[in-house]
């Protein structure tokens, strides 16, 4: 299992294996589970990492490194969005995510690397939820979108 099957033409979400599952939009374009949602690209970016192969028990070092860099790009996207909001709590969560990512070093066989990467993703999730809260929207629930990903297992699934 590797790679992305297609990008959503509407929100840019990287989706795998499900263009047919969501039916067709008018004009024959594939459906996108994030289409029309607030912060669709951030949600999709989060979930692509959340359900990514780096979290599998048997993840290869290259998959972990890919996940690491993908988290970095995801945090940059969140930073860009937060820049236009007066949301200090969200900025603080982003800082925490960056610190966690800095502590991870996928170039080395460090036991804590996966944990730090997972922490970075959790803080990123919280920052997205901060943005959603400011719009009066409920938090993002990755599991609502799991059928769009090749989810085998999520070793670090959130408690709630």
């Amino acid at each position, binding site marked *: 299992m590797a790679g992305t099957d297609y990008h959503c033409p509407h929100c840019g979400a990287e989706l795998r294996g499900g263009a047919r599952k969501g039916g067709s939009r008018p004009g024959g374009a594939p459906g996108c589970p994030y289409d029309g949602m607030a912060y669709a690209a951030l949600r999709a970016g989060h979930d692509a990492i959340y359900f990514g192969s780096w979290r599998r028990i048997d993840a290869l070092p290259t998959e972990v490194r890919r996940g690491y860099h993908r988290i970095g790009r995801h945090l940059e996207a969140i930073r860009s969005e937060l820049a236009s909001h007066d949301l200090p*709590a969200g900025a*603080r969560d982003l800082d925490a995510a960056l610190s966690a990512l800095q502590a991870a070093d996928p170039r080395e066989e460090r036991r804590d690397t996966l944990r730090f990467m997972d922490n970075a993703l959790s803080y990123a999730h919280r920052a997205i939820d901060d943005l959603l809260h400011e719009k009066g929207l409920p938090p993002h629930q990755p599991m609502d979108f799991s059928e769009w990903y090749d989810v085998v297992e999520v070793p670090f699934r959130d408690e*709630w």
Partner: protein
Amino acid sequence: MIDLERYPRQIALRNGVTLVFRPMCREDVDRLWVFFQRVPPEDKMFFRQDVSRREVVQHWADTLDYDLVLPILALEGGRVVGDATLHRQRSGWKQRVGVVRVQIAPDYRHQGLGTAMVRELRHLGEKSGLHYLMAEVIEEQGAAVRAFEKMGFDRAVTFRNFVNDREGGIHNLVVLLYRMSSSPDDPRRPTGASGG
């Protein structure tokens, strides 16, 4: 002074129900009193005041001062389903420490309302120049402890056999702290020595 122009705010929960968050006003006495009457006895045991008495709630309304206590209500129509308060001091050694308390109606628990209210308090705390938010929770109230931890509060200390309920039972008290962006203890805050 906290800017309250953001209220009233509509907040949607996971189950699709939309609530309104807004500060308590004097006219809220009866609906808040009804809310507290529906709080389960096991939760009431840990209240600091006897909120089953209307005059207690009336006193809060008569002495409302948002700079000292800012109560944010979650309302479904005219019914209060959640109450979150931010307690501050104008002066003295704890003027940079805000104390937060949250109470959720039993039929609104496990729907994300507690987390949303803690998120709201965190925003208010950040905007009011506080260094820390502090929550005190009885250890048995696991859901409340988890809601605070989920929002970035750390367990600072647990006092064993520290507080008593209204029936004389003794309980552990968990103190949780949230460090604000402006906290001098923030490890991510640049220090002068680094030149950053």
